[in-house]
């Protein structure tokens, strides 16, 4: 099962839990209890992942009892699974209207809003959920993820802290706090967080890759290489992992080893522009200028706005005595955002001026 789906289900569990907690036992209630029966039936269908059946049942429950807040909430959860986000949103709105301050309603609606690509609104709802239930780790975690993606790494780290406080066993929260620390240049803390995530969940392999990055930033190249090796030993089909290990080998001045890794990344994913560019860089170091130019050209073909690849090809072409072409490449790199391109062009006496 892909990890995003697994996590979605994990995160959805509290909602289902909410529905289960509010399951009504018919034997203790008077009257025909049509709404309650239908509701329970819907819940069973939901748990069996029969979402269409669940939807019908919750419809019946709501038809029988128009102020049935729990039925609205669970129908919203069902509609979320069916990707009917507008209707899901309307149901959560109704549920919260009927039962204001319910953290699960806010949490569910936040997820819908995330699905609808409304991160600000989602953030707001997660905040309400956190306010309503401060020990509910997923709300902290999900808001942390949103804030991380927004680039607000300090706030994200605070949220992951909140998630860990609410659930000290949440490996994902450690992992992502590690990432927030990495972004905040707290590499030692990041390494520690990734290590804790791995202790809690040894199959969280991404933590190996990310720990390697942090280790490289603190000059622990041998440890980083060991982490890449450990990752690749368990998962040999990830082009990104080979490419990153190649970069670490490059950093270690093992250019031949780097080329082997970049080649493997290309073998796994021939459309992986970074691997082509990086192999060009390693070829440059080994003074293999023609293959370097060819690799950089392939990177540019895959990613026409790839500034780094233009710059690297410029370097290769200079050494291949293709002065005019090198000038064009450096100028293009500058145009795409690498200002050094213009410096190189000026130093080499390229005609024309910086744009």
């Amino acid at each position: 099962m892909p990890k995003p789906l697994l996590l979605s289900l994990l995160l959805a569990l509290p909602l289902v839990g909410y529905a289960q907690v509010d399951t009504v036992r018919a034997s203790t209630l008077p009257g025909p209890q049509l709404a309650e029966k239908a509701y329970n039936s819907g819940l069973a269908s939901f748990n069996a992942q029969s979402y269409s059946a669940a939807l019908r049942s919750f419809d019946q429950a709501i038809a029988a009892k128009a102020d049935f807040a729990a039925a609205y909430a669970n129908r919203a959860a069902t509609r979320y699974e069916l990707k009917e986000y507008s209707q899901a949103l309307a149901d959560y709105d109704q549920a919260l209207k009927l039962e204001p301050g319910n953290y699960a309603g806010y949490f569910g609606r936040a997820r819908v809003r995330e699905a609808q690509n409304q991160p600000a609104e989602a953030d707001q709802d997660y905040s309400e959920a956190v306010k309503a239930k401060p020990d509910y780790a997923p709300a902290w975690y999900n808001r942390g993820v949103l804030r991380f993606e927004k680039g607000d790494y300090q706030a994200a780290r605070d949220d992951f802290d909140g998630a860990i406080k609410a659930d000290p066993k949440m490996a994902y929260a450690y992992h992502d706090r590690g990432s927030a620390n990495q972004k905040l240049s707290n590499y030692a803390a990041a390494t520690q967080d990734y290590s804790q995530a791995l202790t809690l969940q040894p199959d969280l392999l991404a933590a190996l890759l990310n720990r390697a990055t942090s280790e490289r930033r603190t000059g622990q190249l041998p440890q980083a290489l060991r982490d890449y090796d450990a990752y690749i030993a368990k998962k040999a089909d990830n082009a990104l992992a080979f490419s990153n290990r190649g970069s670490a080998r490059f950093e270690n001045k093992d250019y031949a080893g780097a080329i082997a890794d970049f080649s493997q990344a290309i073998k796994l994913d021939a459309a992986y522009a970074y691997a082509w560019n990086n192999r060009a860089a390693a070829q440059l170091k080994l003074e293999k200028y023609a293959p370097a130019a060819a690799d950089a050209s392939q990177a540019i073909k895959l990613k026409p706005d790839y500034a780094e690849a233009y710059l690297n090809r410029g370097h290769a072409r200079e050494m291949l005595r293709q002065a005019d072409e090198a000038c064009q490449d450096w100028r293009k790199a500058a145009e795409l955002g690498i200002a050094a391109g213009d410096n190189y062009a000026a130093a080499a006496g390229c005609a024309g001026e910086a744009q």
Partner: protein
Amino acid sequence: MPILFRLFLLLLLAPTFQAAAQSVAFSKDQFSENKEGLREAMREMKEGDTEYSADPARYAQALPHYLAAQEFNPNNAGLNVKIGDCYLHSTTKTAALPYLQKAAKLDATADARTHFLLARALHLSAKWREAIAEYQLAPPVGGNTRNGSADALTANDLQRYIQQCRNGQLLMARPVRVFVDNAGPELNSADSDYGPVVSADESTIVITSRRAGSIGGKKDPEGNGYFEDIYQATWTGKAWSRAANLGAPVNTDEHNATVGLAPDGQRMLVYSNANGGDILEANLGGSAWGKPKQLGSRINTRSHETSASYSPDGRYLYFVSDREEGSLGRSDIYKVELESRTPPVNLGSTINTAYGEEGVFMQPDGKTMFFSSEGHNTMGGYDIFKSVFENGKWSKPENLGWPINTPDDDVFFVTSASGRHGYYSSDRPGGLGAKDIYRITFLGPEKQPLLSEEDQLLASRLAPMKQTVLAPAVEVATAQVTILKGTVTDDATKQPVEAAIDLIDNTSGQTIATFRSNSTSGRYLVSLPSGTNYGIVVRQEGYLFHSENFDLPAGAAYAEVVKDIPLKRLEMGVTIVLKNIFFDTGKASLRPESTAELERLQKLLTETPALKLEMAGHTDDVGEAAKNQDLSQRRAQAVVAYLTQHGIAAARLTAAGYGETRPVAPNTNKANRQLNRRTEFKVTGK
């Protein structure tokens, strides 16, 4: 090699021919079946020995005889040593190595001095480690024998050679990034070509060549081509034109060699072997070089003056001399102010060593000097060094490194003003014959490639986020000089004009230098080292002066500016922009840097009593039009006030403020707005 050592070598090697087990002697026993061939080989040997043992030795003449004998008997140790020795004294020194290696292999008990020759060949072939081992097997000789003659090889000499090898090891381990390109058949010939000098913008190159076709047609008795002549070529945009002999009067039937070229290509320094070696100066009049003239006794003495270079303003000359007075070594670099009477000054011990210095070249930035030296950390012979004059002193000379420098002599190195290209001569494999001229392209520090990486930072997303790892930016060293060049013409006829070009330091008001545009082409070139606010005034009798301003802050990077200058005759209605008049921002107060220009204007009015001028102020369109109008009027009046205060009758001057109404360029960018903010005068009476 002096005669005593060669005789010594002949004597020492004789018995080893017999003793060495593998060395094959020239004897009837060895060649009983080819007595005729043996006789012929012995004859060649004898003829070779006659040349080899002459004083001075004639290595070039000995070599073909030895090679002929070697063809008959390749395995004679002594003969191989002699061939190696001859090659070590030729222009292809590295050819000695296989012969000397063979000699050592054929004769395990080889004479210790043979180790020295082998060490030299290994050294010159940049085989540093092996050379050091051989030098260590060569004991000092001559210092305590041979009555102190010049063939002495002291322990100090050997230590110095070993140190040079160690320098070579270090320098070769971190080669400089350059392209070294043969300048091609347009400049090079089958004979020796060397001594390149280039104009600042690399449009002209002048070289020395020993090729066929020299004036007088005399040949070098040592077999090194013809007598030297000077040749010139121009850059056509993609390649050099074919080098042409400069002819008389620069070239004569004696040796004529290049020494230096002024940055504007209008003056040339040439070498004459008269008077023990002197430096002469030739001027370019139109398209023809004049007869070289002596530079005077302060520069040329009875000693040997070989190399020289102008400072970019032409005021000073850096030159090499082996004079005894004030010397720190065999030959030193001196500096002299050409228009003064002060004696030359030795550049001091930072530059000059106890050994020889040669081939001085001052870059057009006015502070970077290249020179060759046998001292400092040379890897052998002369190496080329760079030193920068900053804060009143020369920096520690820096070896230009491998592969520019080699174990042999590397001398006469010049660069373009941009510092991107250097030219020198070298005898390296793949050339067109003997020494050739090579162009070096400096590539700067290694250009770091950039890698891209991404991480899967969010466990719940596993969505890659781009993360690029950036290498630190490289420092790009660019020369800090601006080359201003162009053509001076008559504005009306468009014909070239020979005019004087004054270079003025606006801050001090002093004229730094005066150049002249070429009388035939009107072309001029001026080097402007960064760090000065320059006023440029172009003047010629019968014309109104033309002024330009270049305010180049310290550190301003290399630039080439082409500025054609149309000179206007003094006629009614003619307008001249005064580019060196400066006001305080938003005010009408004249800045002190304007003084030189104002004095020029005053002089013009004084020398031309009938001249009447309207001083006009103009602004750009920034701000309110009325304020601009007022400011321009006040600025024009400020100039008029200066002139009347300095003796010009007020009746001859009027002031007009035009504000932003008469732009010379659309006010669409900074450069155009600058053009529009101007002070000019118009001739209203003459």
